[in-house]
């Protein structure tokens, strides 16, 4: 019984972080992926903030779905409830960090307002419900998805730092070359599909 749970959790962990990577195969959280990936430092900061928020929000959203919406037979309210809960949660986390963990706030604070409208956060909460994950599975799935996001954004940022010194044709400068890089990364990530 426990062995089965552990095996399932491992599969979710690998599957959500590498095989169906949130950015490169599901296209969620594309805005921060393209927008905050100029430097490795800021990309890592964003990644950690995303891990923090997604893990927390999948726990809260999962619990609300299981203990409030399902008993009331109001499952159809999930989209409205989740988006409001996530927005409120991010605000709350920001206030909490500002008051009690100043160090962490100084390193993550800038990223938090950017995350509210990140579709990956809502996407994970909805995927957890669609796939019928409970709270524990949902949290693991959220964590794994966010780790996948962090891996890909740090990879892209390190490639972009190198790209700065290259001679790129004029029309390809800026976004196009970044998107081409992302496309090549997506091909590389296709290779993980044999893992599970």
């Amino acid at each position, binding site marked *: 019984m426990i062995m089965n749970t552990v095996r399932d959790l491992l599969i979710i962990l690998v599957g959500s972080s590498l095989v169906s990577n949130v950015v*490169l*195969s*599901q*296209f*969620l*959280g*594309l*805005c*921060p992926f*393209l*927008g*905050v990936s*100029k430097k490795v430092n*800021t990309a890592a900061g964003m990644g950690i903030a995303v891990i923090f928020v997604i893990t927390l929000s999948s726990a809260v959203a999962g619990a609300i779905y299981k203990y409030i919406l399902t008993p009331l037979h109001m499952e*159809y*309210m*999930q*989209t*409205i409830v989740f*988006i*409001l809960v996530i*927005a409120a949660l991010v605000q709350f986390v920001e206030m909490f960090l500002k008051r009690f963990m100043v160090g962490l706030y100084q390193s993550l604070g*800038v990223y938090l*307002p*950017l995350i509210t*409208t*990140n*579709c990956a956060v*809502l*996407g994970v909460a*909805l*995927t957890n419900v*669609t796939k019928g994950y409970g709270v524990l599975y949902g949290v693991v799935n959220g964590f794994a998805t966010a780790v996948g996001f962090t891996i890909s954004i740090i990879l892209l940022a390190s490639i972009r730092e190198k790209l700065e010194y290259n001679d790129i044709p*004029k*029309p*390809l*400068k*800026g*976004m*196009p*070359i*970044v*998107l*081409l890089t*992302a*496309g*090549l990364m*997506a*091909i590389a*990530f*296709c290779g993980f599909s044999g893992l599970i």
Partner: protein
Amino acid sequence: MNKCVERLHNGIIKENPTLVLMLGMCPTLAVTTSAINGLGMGLTTTVVLALSNMIIAALRNIIPDKIRIPAFIVIIASFVTMMQLLLQAYIPSLYKSLGIYIPLIVVNCIILGRAEAYAYKNPILPSFFDGLGMGLGFTISLTIIGLLREFIGGCSVFGHELSLFTPIAIFKMAPGAFFVLALLTAIQNQVKLTGEKKGRDVSKIQSGCGSDCMQCAVGDCKDRVMAADNEKEEA
């Protein structure tokens, strides 16, 4: 009536949300594996956009300024939920293929952007047509991208097999979406470059939030969407 036609033209051509403003990229990349999916997603977004614009315009004097964003989100999310239930009941095949991207219309920045930039300050009818125009612009570009990917990646048009050449399957998969978008932004860059050379006004052509997300924190993203409309009203 002129204003309504002008709004439609603005949304479909002048400020096309996908091809000119580069907004709402997540659904654009995710659902355009075929033309029919792009069309379905575009039309669903159009309905949500037009109706939520209308309701927000109707309530613009009642919604307090400070909590307008949460109020917008609730209105938009309600319409998205309605559309989700309608699709589930009447077009289950589309509901299945679009999947999680239907509820994610809530966080599509085109909708919130239009609410903030236009509907919150304008009467009901122009707001409705503004939403309709933007939505149709989104639909047309999504269908074109879908058609392109379906044709190259599967050698078919709207699901009809053509068997003209060996399809390049990667265009239907995730990397293909990035390549198609890279192509589009490259064309956009080129248009901008030649436009600048000839002295045309190209300030509206933007590569979405691609510039730098960090500026979003100080409200740049929002201002950018709004700036275009503010100018027009002053003129």
